[in-house]
């Protein structure tokens, strides 16, 4: 059973890997479609992009990466049976997820106040689809982190951190392409 042993060597949960690969395919395809449509109207995309909050998004990147670090640290602590620091790290990671959502929420509110929605320009259709799906995953991730801080088995924490790093990684792909690419 050569393939079975290869799968057994994967850290964490097999089904979580299936989910992670599926998510990366979806966001990857979304970004590829975004880049493709952008080719048809570079000027319109650049104009639309100028309405985004780059500073807030850059700050949010730092927030998510720090949060990811805390989730990874929590697993290390739990593995050496330091349950309290592990729990604090997980809850802090979840709180940083909430900070991310608040900053993202103010950006959405500002867009709404300017009368921008998904029909304004194809750029914003992709902006809302990609960052909206991502924000939904952040929300789910906050729930998962809190869940594994309660049921703090090392295996559970590993699966939760797996998911949270995926959310991290997706944002690191979204941020430069949507916010920065000139």
């Amino acid at each position: 059973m050569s393939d079975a042993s290869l799968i057994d060597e994967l850290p964490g949960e097999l089904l979580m890997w299936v989910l992670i690969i599926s998510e990366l395919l979806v966001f990857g395809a979304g970004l590829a479609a975004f880049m493709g449509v952008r080719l048809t109207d570079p000027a319109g995309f650049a104009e639309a992009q100028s309405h985004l909050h780059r500073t807030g998004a850059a700050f949010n990147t730092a927030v998510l990466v720090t949060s990811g670090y805390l989730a990874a640290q929590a697993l290390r602590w739990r593995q050496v049976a330091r349950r309290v620091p592990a729990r604090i790290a997980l809850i802090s990671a979840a709180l940083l997820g909430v900070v991310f959502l608040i900053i993202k929420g103010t950006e959405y509110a500002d867009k709404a106040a300017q009368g921008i929605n998904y029909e304004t320009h194809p750029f914003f259709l992709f902006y809302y689809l990609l960052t909206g799906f991502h924000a939904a995953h952040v929300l789910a991730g906050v729930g998962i982190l809190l869940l594994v801080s309660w049921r703090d088995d090392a295996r559970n924490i590993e699966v939760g951190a797996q998911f949270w790093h995926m959310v991290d990684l997706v944002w690191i792909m979204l941020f430069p392409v949507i916010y920065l690419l000139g």
Partner: protein
Amino acid sequence: MKYESQKIAYAYFAVAMALFVIQVLGGLLAGLIYVSPNFLSELLPFNIVRMLHTNALIVWLILGFFGAAYFLIPEEAEREIHSPKLAYLQLIILVVGTLGVVLTYTFNLFEGNWLLGKEGREFLEQPKWVKAGIVVAALIFLYNVSMTVLKGKKTAISNILLLGLWGLALLFLFAFYNPGNLALDKQYWWYVVHLWVEGVWELIMASILAYLMLKLTGVDREIVEKWLYVIVAAALFSGILGTGHHYYWIGTPAYWQWIGSIFSSLEVIPFFAMMAFAFVMVWKGRRDHPNKAALLWSLGCATLAFFGAGVWGFLHTLHGVNYYTHGTQITAAHGHLAFYGAYVCLNLAIFSYAMPILKNRDPYNQVLNMGSFWLMTSGMVFMTFVLTFGGTVQTHMQRVIGDYFMDVQDQIAIFYWMRFGSGVVVVLGALLFVYSIWVPRKEVIEPGAAETPAE
């Protein structure tokens, strides 16, 4: 047969096979009307024939699933079905309902009656009393199999089968909502049909295939279960939001074009995984099971589902492509091979496995059955190619050049004739299958005899 109550499946399979024959005959008639449009136009208009062809398909497939559940759940749960009486009552309700639908439509009985008449919808069209009957039957079924599993051994196969069947029944409830707005009607229609065939039915398919692989190849249950979980996760991940590929042009917001395109493209993955699963299990399997026909249908199911549902589905799922191909014969090509590969072959696989056991003739007369596989499959694959080529020409003439619909139909008549011919082959294959299951009492060719001349 280890458990007496597995016998329930026999009645379900018998009714399913009878409806299967009616379904393919209806298809043949519809194919004839395509090339000879006035045939029976007063007695049985095309819309009624088409409705019988598609609805009979759905009903017999579901009856097959119910039968499969009654057959395999006792073995998985290691106990008898909770109540065989309820199982037969459920079948009677479904048969009466089906007859009620057929008679109501064919003769347009009780026109305008809220409870007894037609609802005037293109799809999900049953009189209200039949819809209620379906729900009652589904509740009886869910109660019966869930009680059996709850009291017995719980396995991944029976859990996933139950999840699929619960989903099937609950999603049907959307059929009761009949909004006046046609766009909304279609939106909810896909909650039923898409989330069935590209959602919960895939769970049923994966679990029945897993059961067959377990029995036919003798691979460890642990390995089968790992594959099963991965397939189910991939199916639900892609299939649920994949519903968006039906929302491109019905008045729903534009973001569905991207959600539908991206998620439905990933629907290829679970079908590919099921094909890989079936072949890897056969290669790894140590058991040389004598029921070669069931194995042939299982491998055929996984392969043709990948091509029919996966490849032919992907062919026109991107909204940029679908803008041109929507509702052309490309759709018909995909629909035929997808339903045949995924769900017809699956049912015929479990019939081929279970019927000899249910009739205590294990295993017998595999040769005619395997012949019917090749006959039906070659007919269906040829039909798919013909409709794909016809649909390509139609797409170009009608959607790119902008010719009139009926002028284009005249131009592609040759494809409709070839489709009718391939339909004849499929019907012959279906009749041969039914004959091979019910009539012969001994092997046509003794096992091993086929290999001798080649040596």
